[in-house]
């Protein structure tokens, strides 16, 4: 199989898995327990906290471990919204967020908050003038993703925080799930207050993530119980998972610059080869700074779902738009927000590269894609009952 869907998830790194295993067996204790087995688990938890914090330029005490990016986003948005409700009820986010943010914001709308969904450019970059115009003293929360999961466009977060800080006291959150491990992140410099992460996007296990909450930023917990994670996330932590996240973050921190350069040139090779061998392909977000391993395209005259199915049958794993619960594809809200015409958006395809991607994978993928697009474009529907 040629796996080109690293933006969806990644295989766990061997070093990460090895680091986790002892925490499933000998260090099985509850980290809240006082005896040795509990202390060992707690030690693993705190070491991981330091590693994750170190990878993103944060303090260990600012890291809240969660079950993943979605929980972190929910915690950030609901927690900040309810905590600052007395100051105002306006929330600002973008129209190209992951559903974990988008649907949470829509839910908050039902709870009485007013939400502005900012438009984006044709290249999938948030409109800063619209941001500026949307802000008021009522704005309590602004959430803008670090990089888009579908098209890879990197958002101008420094400018976002500068604009917001000048205008109001809103809490600033970023969904950084797609950024960690792909581009260097220094939260101290971004001027944000909260950021969401997920371990499985960078070679860690599924079911683990984190919310970074800057000191002195106050948010309301959204789940209640034993008071773990400084009262922000009750429930016995997934110790082995967290340990794996810590290891994956440490590796990412060490290797991110080299990997970003390598994947960037590999992606450029992929893009150039596709554009030269297949006609009528438009690369999405090509005019924006992009995540190095992401290539999103619209291929005219073919259905994205047919593309994926045929690529799969030939051993190439890719993705298109975003999947709904039934597994079928609805037109991507990201491509719609970017103003891509529906007939082009139907033929959307995303390749995303990662640690194991090599030039041979890229070349093979181009060969298979060229074949598949040719076949799909050559077959026109027939009329039933033609005898």
């Amino acid at each position: 199989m040629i796996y080109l869907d690293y933006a969806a998830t990644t295989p766990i790194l061997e070093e990460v898995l090895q680091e986790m295993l002892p925490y499933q067996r000998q260090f099985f204790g509850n980290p809240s327990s006082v005896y040795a087995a509990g202390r060992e688990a707690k030690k693993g938890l705190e070491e991981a906290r330091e590693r994750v914090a170190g990878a993103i330029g944060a303090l260990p005490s600012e890291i809240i471990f969660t079950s993943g990016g979605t929980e972190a986003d929910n915690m950030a948005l609901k927690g900040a919204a309810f905590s600052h409700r007395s100051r105002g009820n306006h929330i600002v986010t973008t129209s190209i967020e992951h559903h974990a943010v988008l649907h949470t914001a829509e839910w908050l709308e039902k709870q009485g908050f007013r939400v502005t969904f900012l438009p984006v450019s044709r290249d999938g970059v948030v409109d800063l003038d619209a941001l500026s115009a949307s802000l008021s003293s009522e704005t309590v929360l602004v959430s803008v993703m670090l990089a888009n999961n579908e098209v890879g466009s990197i958002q101008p977060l420094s400018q976002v925080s500068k604009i917001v800080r000048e205008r109001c006291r809103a809490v600033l959150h970023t969904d950084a799930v797609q950024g960690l491990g792909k581009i260097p992140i220094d939260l101290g410099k971004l001027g944000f207050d909260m950021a969401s992460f997920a371990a499985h996007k960078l070679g860690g296990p599924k079911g683990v993530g984190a919310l970074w909450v800057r000191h002195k930023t106050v948010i309301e917990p959204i789940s209640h119980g034993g008071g773990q994670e400084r009262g922000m996330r009750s429930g016995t932590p997934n110790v082995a998972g967290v340990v794996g996240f810590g290891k994956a973050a440490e590796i990412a921190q060490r290797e991110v610059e080299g990997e970003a350069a390598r994947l960037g040139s590999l992606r450029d090779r992929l893009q150039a080869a596709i554009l030269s061998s297949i006609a009528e392909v438009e690369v999405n977000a090509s005019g924006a700074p992009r995540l190095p391993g992401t290539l999103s395209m619209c291929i005219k005259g073919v259905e994205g779902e047919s593309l994926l199915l045929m690529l799969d049958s030939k051993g190439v794993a890719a993705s298109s738009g975003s999947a709904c619960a039934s597994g079928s594809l609805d037109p991507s809200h990201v491509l719609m927000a970017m103003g891509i015409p529906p007939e082009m958006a139907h033929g959307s395809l995303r390749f995303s590269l990662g640690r194991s991607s090599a030039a041979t994978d890229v070349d093979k993928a181009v060969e298979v894609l060229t074949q598949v697009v040719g076949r799909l474009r050559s077959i026109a529907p027939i009329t039933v009952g033609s005898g």
Partner: protein
Amino acid sequence: MRPKAVVAMSGGVDSSVAAALLKDAGYDVIGIMLKLWKGRAANNESGCCSVDAAEDARRVAQVLDFPFYVLNFADEFDRTVVGDFTAGYASGLTPNPCVTCNRTIKFRTLLSRARAYGADLFATGHYARVEETAAGFRLMRANDRSKDQSYVLYMLGQVELAMTRFPVGEYSKPEIRDIAASLGLRTAGKPDSQDICFVPNGDTHAFLRERVPAGSQPGPILNAAGESLGTHRGYAHYTLGQRRGLGLGTGLPLYVREIRPSDNVVVVAGREHMSVRTMHLRDVSFVRPRKQMFRTSVITRYRGAEAMATVQTAEATARVEFDEPQPLAAPGQSAVFYDGDEVLGGGTILSAA
């Protein structure tokens, strides 16, 4: 290389077993479910297209070990099948959406997709059979007559039948359930679906009130003499030949004889006015080429009785002359021609007199 079969799966037991039978026959099976409805499922939880149905079909594919995909046909389905359904009722007809779906979605768009995917065979869970003979492919009734669905497949021609198979058509329903159970498929005990898949909770009236508001305004029920006998709840809510649910207090049984959208009138008549000798059809097609005039048995509604007639065709239209007077059939429904167990073809009922 093993031959490849695309199986259209609904999440029910029949299409599950269709896939299993083809897998067993040595095909590389690809399961495909069509998502025909936007947003969440329109129907009850177990209905076709629902998330649960997709999960059931996907689980069957896992157990039988073949790839499964959901394709989004919601836009095309809404445009063609639902559009035809609402437009039909708006003009006083009684459309058959399954026939439209088979004609447009399943055996045109999906079949051509299957061909593009390199499939040698396309299968569904319909109860019918395809026979290959020296004279071409024949479309036959299912062996289990009580489950026969050949009525909704009459529009298939040689091009479609050349690559289409209905694996469950050889079996009885209990046998199909037994096969599903013996393979440990979770769909083995699922109840049969009865309702129109896109009408929530099977409430056609509620659906029509929403989608055909012009046909849902009360108006007069008149007799042949033009005298008002009562009030109807919207002409789109009636079918020609209907007797029950008219709410008329007269002693003699009365039937819907005419639906007039132009002035929102429903005309009723006594039984003696409800039989016809002649029908006109449109969109007529044949499984195998036929002579212009032929004798045949005709069915004018799903599970309806057969009646002998002489059919005269011209292009895609036909005139059906029954041997004996027949109960009035509803325009919009399909008239299907049979010779014994073989489906010859059929068309949409345009009018009857």
